[in-house]
């Protein structure tokens, strides 16, 4: 019974724990990309986090609300994924007040930018390898 491809939620176990473990047979189809590249950065690979990092890559900083609007997501979802990126120091967050309104601003760190570039290289290398192998 094949599982739907790439369906992952914030409730999934932390990515680092599964990074180097062999693929379970049930994940052959759903986990092909991850299994093909054992060094794939799973922190960035998750779709919402990939969106956050991509958006911050072309902006000095973005507020929580700008990111929420851009990625068309909920407060809770964005907050969970942004915190995950903060934990691994791919993004940094600063909180301030604009008048009486709290303002949360995110920036991509040097480590985050490098990780993003590495991820892009992985994807491009994968496509290239597939084309050459075809």
């Amino acid at each position, binding site marked *: 019974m094949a599982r739907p491809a790439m369906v992952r939620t914030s409730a999934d176990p932390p990515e680092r724990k599964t990074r180097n473990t062999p693929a379970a047979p049930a994940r*052959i*189809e759903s986990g092909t*990309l991850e299994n093909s590249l054992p060094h794939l950065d799973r922190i960035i690979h998750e779709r919402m986090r990939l969106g956050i990092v991509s958006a911050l890559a072309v*902006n*000095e900083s973005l507020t929580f609300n700008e990111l929420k609007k*851009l990625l068309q997501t909920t407060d809770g979802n964005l907050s969970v994924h942004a915190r995950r990126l903060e934990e691994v120091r791919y993004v940094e967050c600063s909180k301030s007040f604009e008048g009486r309104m709290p303002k949360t601003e995110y920036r991509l760190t040097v480590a985050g930018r490098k990780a993003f570039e590495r991820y892009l290289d992985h*994807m491009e290398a994968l*496509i290239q390898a597939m084309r050459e192998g075809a």
Partner: protein
Amino acid sequence: MALAQQARILKEPVSIDRRAADNLRFIRDTMERAASFTAVPGWGGVAVGCTALAAGLTAAHRSIQQAFFVWMAEAGVALLVAAVAVCRKSRRLALPLGSQPSRRALLSFAPPLLAGGMLTVVLFRLHELSILPGVWLLLYGAAVVTGGAFSVRIVPLMGLCFMLAGALALASPAAWGNWFLLAGFGFLHIGFGVAIARRHGG
């Protein structure tokens, strides 16, 4: 079941390839949409504002016709400075000028400017130079409002300020025209340019 599994494995390379390409597409789309937040170069605006201050001071106490040519020269310089600033920013953000947000902003920005250009020719022929400062500020403001409609709120707000300055210039004595141009193209560009640069990355 074994056959089904084998079929899945045989299909695998195509699936991986497509998913990697899909990921790259998603990244590009997100970057394009996110880049529209800072489509306007803030420091470029500051540079344009400085050239406008210089033009305003040069045109001060000159005849209305001489002032007209000073400001026409300033328009050329400002266009050049703005083009360089936009190119540099798009290169820094790794977004080609042909990308969707750039095209969209340019297409919305151009029509009011073209209208301003045509009106300039007509009013110059009619020797009605005294109302040109108001017309320029008003139509440039309209261009910024329409071009900045997809950008951060500060950009259309800057356009509205230009439109307000234009309306005031049209209602004021002709002798004040140069000072309205100096205040509008100079101080508004510098003030909003600094705010955009600080808040939206350059």
